[in-house]
């Protein structure tokens, strides 16, 4: 059973913003709304690292808990989605989210806050899969096409991995073995909870693993 996850590998991310425009392209996201973005730490000095951030589709999603109209749900694959028809644009999910994922596009000409918009793991929403209604509200539904999020699939250095948590953790673990040093998967603990079996940091990778 697939449990969908994102991993952002800071050793690989080069802040090219490919994930950001891949998302814009696939879902035709308007100017000013960023379901995904790249954050850089220590910009311009040794130690500079970047990571790509969007909704992490948390195991225990705080947004679901705080939503006053209970419009956020989790799919069988662990993807956190919402029904925009019920959303009142209050912004509580935004306050609750440790990753700043929820976005509030402008609605109308007077700067009113619109309904919440966020990364869907390219899984659309509760409209018919691949329908016009789904596309207009949530963007494309790649998951129902058997594809993975465009951002991860197009990542320039394969820093951003998305997909079945077991598989991408394996991919990442393999890298760490070759690298021969500790990992830097950002956000894993926050998004997916305390160490569990797939968590890369827990693997006996590191030293002397190169042959």
């Amino acid at each position, binding site marked *: 059973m697939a449990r969908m996850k994102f991993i952002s590998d800071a050793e690989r991310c080069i802040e*090219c913003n490919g994930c950001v425009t891949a998302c814009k392209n696939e879902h035709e996201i308007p100017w000013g709304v960023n379901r995904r973005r790249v954050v850089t730490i220590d910009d*311009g000095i040794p130690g500079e690292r970047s*990571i790509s951030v969007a909704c992490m589709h948390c195991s225990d999603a705080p947004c679901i808990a705080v939503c006053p109209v209970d419009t956020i749900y989790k799919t069988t694959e662990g993807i956190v989605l919402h029904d925009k028809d019920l959303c009142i644009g209050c912004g509580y999910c935004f306050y609750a989210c440790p990753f700043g994922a929820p976005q509030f596009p402008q609605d109308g000409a007077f700067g009113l806050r619109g309904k919440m918009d966020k990364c869907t793991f390219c899984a659309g929403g509760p409209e018919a899969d691949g329908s016009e209604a789904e596309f207009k509200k949530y963007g494309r539904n790649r998951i129902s096409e058997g594809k993975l999020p465009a951002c991860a699939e197009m990542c320039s250095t394969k820093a951003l991995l998305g997909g079945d948590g077991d598989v991408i953790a394996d991919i990442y673990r393999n890298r760490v073995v070759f690298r021969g040093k500790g990992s830097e998967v950002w956000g894993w603990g926050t998004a997916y909870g305390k160490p569990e079996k797939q968590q890369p940091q827990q693997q006996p990778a590191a030293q002397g693993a190169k042959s």
Partner: protein
Amino acid sequence: MLLTKKASSQAGTRGRLSRQVAGYLGNTLDRRAFLKRSGLAVGAGAFATQLPFAMIDKAEAAKQGGGETRVARTVCTHCSVGCSIDAHVQNGVWVRQEPVFDSPLNLGAHCAKGAAAREHGMTDHSARLKYPMKLEGGKWKKLSWDQAMKEVTDKMLAIRKDSGPDAVYWIGSSKHSNEQAYLMRKFVSFWGTNNCDHQARICHSTTVAGVANTWGYGAMTNSYNDMQNSKAILFLGSNACEAHPVSMLHTLHAKENGAKIIVCDPRFTRTAAKADYFVRIRSGGDVAFIFGLLHHIFKNGWEDKEYIRQRVYGMDKVKEEVMAKWTPDKVQDVTGVPEEQVYTVAKMISENRPSTIVWAMGQTQHSNGNAVVRASCILELALGNVGKSGGGTNIYRGHDNVQGATDVGPNPDSLPGYYGIVEGSWKYWCRVWGVDFEWVKKQFASPAMMTKPGITVSRWIDGVLEKNENIDQDSNLRAVVYWGHAPNSQTRGKEMVEAMKKLDLLVVIDPYPSATAAMAAMVRQDGVYLLPACTQYETSGSVTASGRSLQWRERAIEPLFESKPDHTLMLAFAKKFGFDKELAKNYKIVKDKDGWDEPEPESILREINRGVWTIGYTGQSPERLKLHMKNQHTFDVKTLRAKGGPCDGDYYGLPWPCYGTPEMKHPGTPHLYDTSKHVMDGGGNFRANFGVEKDGVNLLAEDGSASKGADLQFGYPEFDHLLLKKLGWWDDLTEAEKKEAEGKNWKTDLSGGIIRVTMKNHGCHPFGNAKARAVVWNFPDPIPQHREPLYSPRPDLVDKYPTHDDKKAFWRLPTLYKTIQQANKDISKEYPLIMTSGRLVEYEGGGEEQRSNPWLAELQQDMFVEINPKDANDRGVKAGDYVWVETPTKARLKVKAQVTERVGAGTVFLPFHFSGWWMGKDMLEYYPPGSAPIVRGEAVNTATTYGYDSVTMMQETKTTLCKIAKA
């Protein structure tokens, strides 16, 4: 853990939304941050409010038609990596873009530009030029194609009649396909001039000349993929993370597998952030730095002595010079790099072989650029890295087809395939084209002009502005055609508008002509024409990636609006000029939906295949290229070789040289000069292009050094009919081949017989087997010399390392060196900061196309200057302030200050992709209505200064001086 720290306090000064979000990772949230985060406070002119989902409407319209989805495989047009893209097209609308995991070059990966490729002007609010326009009485006016073509060609013919064919200057494009670039050179030749050029001049001309003169071919020796086989990778003058992001997939993979990454740069670039070792070097000190490395290599005996003995000419002379002149103290004086760091780098690249050096415009764009690149070649030769997988000189080229356009396109000093422009070259190509040499000769002003290299794109402004008696052609330039080239990529912008003002006619043919249009409209009332060309996604053809692999682009969609493919337009122009029959003689003509004649790209490529033997563009038939595109998954990522399948044994994209006829089935050459492979397996050796001896020293390879399995296991000259006869191989030719090959050499034998016999029957290389040259005696500096930039921050070093003497007639123009340097020797008192320029990942080249793409424009909204905190504080400048950047030309740029330690104290950096502001003023009113890009800003080249390479006329952009004050 490091990544839980807050974002830097420098937030926002680069206009990056990601950086505007202070505290994005956690807790700090105020209303302002919230608004920014939710996109409400972000504005950019007309796009402050939400963009309409305009493309959806189109897609919907298409869906209502219920059309089937067609998938076209094309190649990204934003850089030279060559990333494949699958365009999903429904009822003629490009509705989706899918990653191509099968591609061995990019494995589905894209940077911001590639991932945004679909939005190349498809929306109705697009800044694409939609129909022909002209400037009339200071206003832009719509024209019909008929009217526009008539007015433009009538004016050109009138200028030709009055002032001769050399009065028109044709600026072609490195974004043209191979077929278009090739046709452009042919077209300009039939017009009767060598006055044509393209972006390669200002990108890698010094590389091409320097590298070709060292060992044979002017190209990247290995490939992006081959980085995976390197043990140490030295980036000197390349910021691949921003300029060639997808190449980093291979580089970081190599790093993961133990390769050492070293970055030497004036800036702590994003590539430096991924390096094992970073060295900050003074801009312009490259030769001194490289020779500093060689000093340690020679001193410690780390050079590959046997390799040098067998395969390199003149290393002894270089060693003498290096040991005497480039002691660690002198290296430090010039470069600012302490001995210990130079030693560390030398040791790393020596102990981890094969090692490679990577460069881009950081090495090339200097007034001694040819010397810098040759120093790099010498370094790799000393280490014995050239001609080896994992080694070589990996020269990252810029535009998607700048390599191809250099190989077969509009160069002012050569016909396609580096055949030159001497009479014999012309006669050869007339034979291929099937036209009468005497007719072509008559098209020129005189036979002398036919063999005289034309003016370069870096200097066209001087072709207009220079006094007539000083220029080496009859008339000054009176008309300029910008055919797929940005104006803001050339230096001395302040003088460019003067040149634009003085022209009789300016024609711009481009999908996005607006920067040129606006600059011209700022100083003119009329005489400017804009003709809409389509993008490469709207036509088909081949494109050569930096690693020399050719890929075939399928047409994704029909040309948008009223635009036309460039090759269709070339034929249309030729009709008006009366040489369409000659131009299209060998081509199949296809009628487009409007009844225009399009010369079929496949048949143009077949003509290239028939003529370009020199560099092996002969084996890549359209059929073979298309087969590769369909079977990408059969190619190994690390070797680029197909295992099984219909392309079995081929290297991906048949990287040139792919010798002989397509039927000979040469697999292409993954790494140039590799003696460990048979020539029919892509092996080779250095080229015999400079004679067999020099001053009594043997120039051919020494005994025992030859490609694997060659019948001749020693040095030999290039093959011609005489050598074949001498060796007794002549009778290996068929009767038909003999007839054609008689009196010819391997480059001019149209039968391909000499090549077939040499390679297939005898395993030898048709271009001979010689040594690489560490000393290039035909260049101004046979041994590369450090020469201070014309605008140097160090008057003391100007005395020690002065520039060249002035040149009177160089590419038809007087060219100044010492005069400028001496006049500005103490200018650093007034202009103390070194000013350098470079790339941003979201944009490319002049940036017009990407700044018109909302998905990219949103990510970089402001032109900026990177300034060290010390320099900023000394000037009272705070992060995000507007500042004036002024250079010795007195041009002033109003840009935002990005205060950062990315640059060292004393150096400032500006990106070169902006245009649309002119010395503090938004040029919006000068754009044709609706065609202004979303993001506009000062062009750094408005303020850049004079300075040109002494071989190729490459412009100096990387080292000049400026001062900065708060605006």
